[in-house]
């Protein structure tokens, strides 16, 4: 038994980095091929140009992937602990972007902030506010809409989740705006050169932030008492309760963390794209869910990896000149993965298909 666990953990420990490296290399090659093939259509590119374009697209993909990964973590955590597809999660992301819009416009910003200390302060402030607000919203949703249905037939909380998603979306639609809203892009548009790598400040910031949050989450789940409570609740709720874990608090905490991460993704959306709209959460949520399924639902590292894969898929389809098909590609991928490999690419956990 112990050796089996150890063996599985050993295999899992290697599987992630290997898969990650394979994904990165393959994605880069496909992007490069796409740049080259498309360049022949319009003009002749030098090798250096093609390489730098491919690199820019690659970084763009990683950045978009980081946003999906942050959202996917919330999906996968909630699913892992109460086996509910929280359809409202994408809307939490959308609301997070609106919170950062509200904050930045209320504070009177409209463009880049050049003072580094002020910039840092405002960024920290907007992340803290958005993550706190969305975390609380997530806990409230769980308390009001999902907890009363915890023992109801499976269909009931799913339908409730759809309802909550429409409530959030339409509150924003009715109360704030029915069209695209511009969010001030406060990070200046500067490019950094790190050895052979050219990367703009915003991309670097998003990637570092997302990876930092993911590492923090991993440490929290893996190393703290509360994280252990979450893991044990996910494995066997009744047994965890018998061991003295407060189930309600643990589930609420899961919702708080998941929603806070989605809130952070919302802020990133504003900083990186500079726009948001009331219905942005639906598709983003669906793509992030695809990411969670890709990584093996319930598996947080898998969800992060899945998010990056979705980012690559999107950018690859646009590099190959098929951007309008990116949604169809992603959802087609979702169907295929669910049908042929429901445990995800990392192939762990949740084997049950009943």
């Amino acid at each position: 038994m112990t050796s089996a666990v150890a063996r599985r953990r050993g295999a899992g420990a290697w599987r992630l980095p290997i898969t990650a490296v394979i994904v990165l290399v393959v994605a880069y090659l496909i992007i490069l091929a796409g740049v080259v093939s498309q360049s022949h259509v319009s003009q002749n590119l030098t090798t250096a140009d093609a390489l730098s374009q491919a690199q820019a697209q690659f970084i763009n993909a990683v950045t978009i992937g980081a946003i999906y990964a942050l959202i996917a973590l919330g999906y996968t955590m909630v699913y892992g602990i109460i086996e509910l597809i929280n359809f409202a999660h994408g809307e939490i992301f959308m609301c997070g972007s609106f919170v950062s819009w509200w904050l930045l416009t209320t504070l009177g910003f409209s463009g880049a902030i050049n003072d580094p200390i002020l910039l840092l302060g405002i960024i920290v402030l907007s992340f803290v506010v958005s993550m706190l607000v969305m975390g609380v919203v997530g806990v409230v949703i769980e308390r009001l809409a999902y907890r009363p249905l915890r023992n109801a037939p499976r269909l009931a909380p799913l339908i409730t989740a759809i309802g909550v998603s429409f409530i959030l979306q339409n509150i924003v639609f009715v109360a704030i705006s029915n069209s695209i809203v511009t969010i001030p892009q406060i990070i200046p548009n500067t490019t950094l050169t790190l050895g052979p790598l050219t990367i703009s400040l915003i991309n670097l910031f998003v990637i570092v932030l997302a990876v930092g949050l993911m590492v923090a989450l991993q440490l929290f789940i893996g190393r703290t008492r509360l994280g252990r409570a979450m893991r044990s609740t996910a494995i066997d709720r009744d047994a965890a309760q018998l061991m003295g874990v407060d189930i309600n608090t643990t589930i609420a905490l899961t919702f708080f963390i998941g929603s806070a991460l989605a809130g952070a993704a919302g802020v990133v959306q504003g900083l990186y794209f500079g726009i948001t709209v009331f219905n942005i959460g639906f598709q983003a949520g669906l793509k992030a869910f695809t990411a969670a399924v890709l990584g093996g639902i319930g598996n947080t590292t898998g969800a992060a990896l899945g998010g990056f894969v979705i980012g690559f898929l999107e950018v690859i389809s646009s590099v190959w000149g098929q951007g309008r098909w990116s949604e169809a590609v992603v959802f087609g991928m979702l169907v295929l993965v669910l049908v042929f490999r429901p445990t995800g690419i990392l192939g762990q956990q949740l084997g049950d298909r009943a």
Partner: protein
Amino acid sequence: MSGNPGTTAPAWRAMLGRVGTYLASHQSMSIVLGLAITAALLPLIVLLPPLNGFGTQKDWVNGFADAGVFVLLAIGLNVVVGLAGLLDLGYAAFFAIGAYTYAYGASSFTGLDIPFWPMLLVGAIVAAMFGVLLGAPTLRLRGDYLAIVTLGFGEIVPVVFLNADTYTKGTNGITGLAQPSAYGLFGVNGFGFTNPWPYFVTVVAIIAVAFIFLYRLQDSRIGRAWVAIREDELAAASMGINTVTTKLLAFSIGASTSGLAGVFFAAKLSIVSPDQFGFTVSFTALAMVVLGGMGNIWGVAVGAFIVYEIQTQGLKQLGSFVQSLHIPAFALGPVTLDLGAINFLNFQYLLYGLALVAMMLLRPEGLFPSRRRRSELHETPEEAAESNEEIVQA
């Protein structure tokens, strides 16, 4: 007039009793009769105030014909969600497939000119085929994965119709679809655009056929198998029910009803375009099923009708009512609130969302519940355990 009420009253009552027993043993007849009475009464009710102030009888009947499309969608989705307990969130995809099937069969775009009536069947079959194609691999998965796969499918289908513009004319859609024709029956030839009555009668007839079909299925061996799967899939499987084929059947029958609705919808509008079949259509149909009472065909149909009328007439009238009050705009913090300027139609989906959550929390069996569904949804695991204990003790 007659001085002997003592003998006429029992005769009258006996007559009624005979009709009652006849209808009780002939379900299809009672469906036809019930729908016929409803269809005859509805255009009369709208002549009464205040309804006649909201539009002419023609407008109302036109609205009823449109409502019929949603009634069809809802009773079809009811088979999937209400009877078999599978959450299908991409239901609008089959609606779109039905509509585009008619567009291909009866428009100048393809040059084909197949009459409306056979196309109803074709649309239903094509939609059912797509239902099988999607369902066959995915129905083996657990229920909530099915929800997400159908959601994805529901997103892909309009995207395909939008992007494959060589075959679908993209965002403009296919226009100039042929009108249905009654070939001179009741003096009607082509249905045209101005007269809503033929559409109304047609949709009631389609609903009647669907009703009879679905009621018979529900009371058959297959219907019982659906309910068994909904209640406990493992137990159903161990009783010898092939859960995959049975679920697939529910899924494809739901899809075919949606396809049927799509053909009618396309023929009535005479245009199909990708934006008509977004997620909101699936969501509206789901709200209708949940509100009406999952599993109860009549309840779902009535729920769909009421929801549709609230959405098209109720919110509009509420808007003009509030506007007529002339409430001055007032400030609420940073937001200025002008009630007169509010478009209440914008609140439609917010209301559906609230309704879905409220129904699930307070009255999961719906407004018009089926008896079986009510008892199932109101039984907590503790109660179930208790009733099992009682059985054991007995």
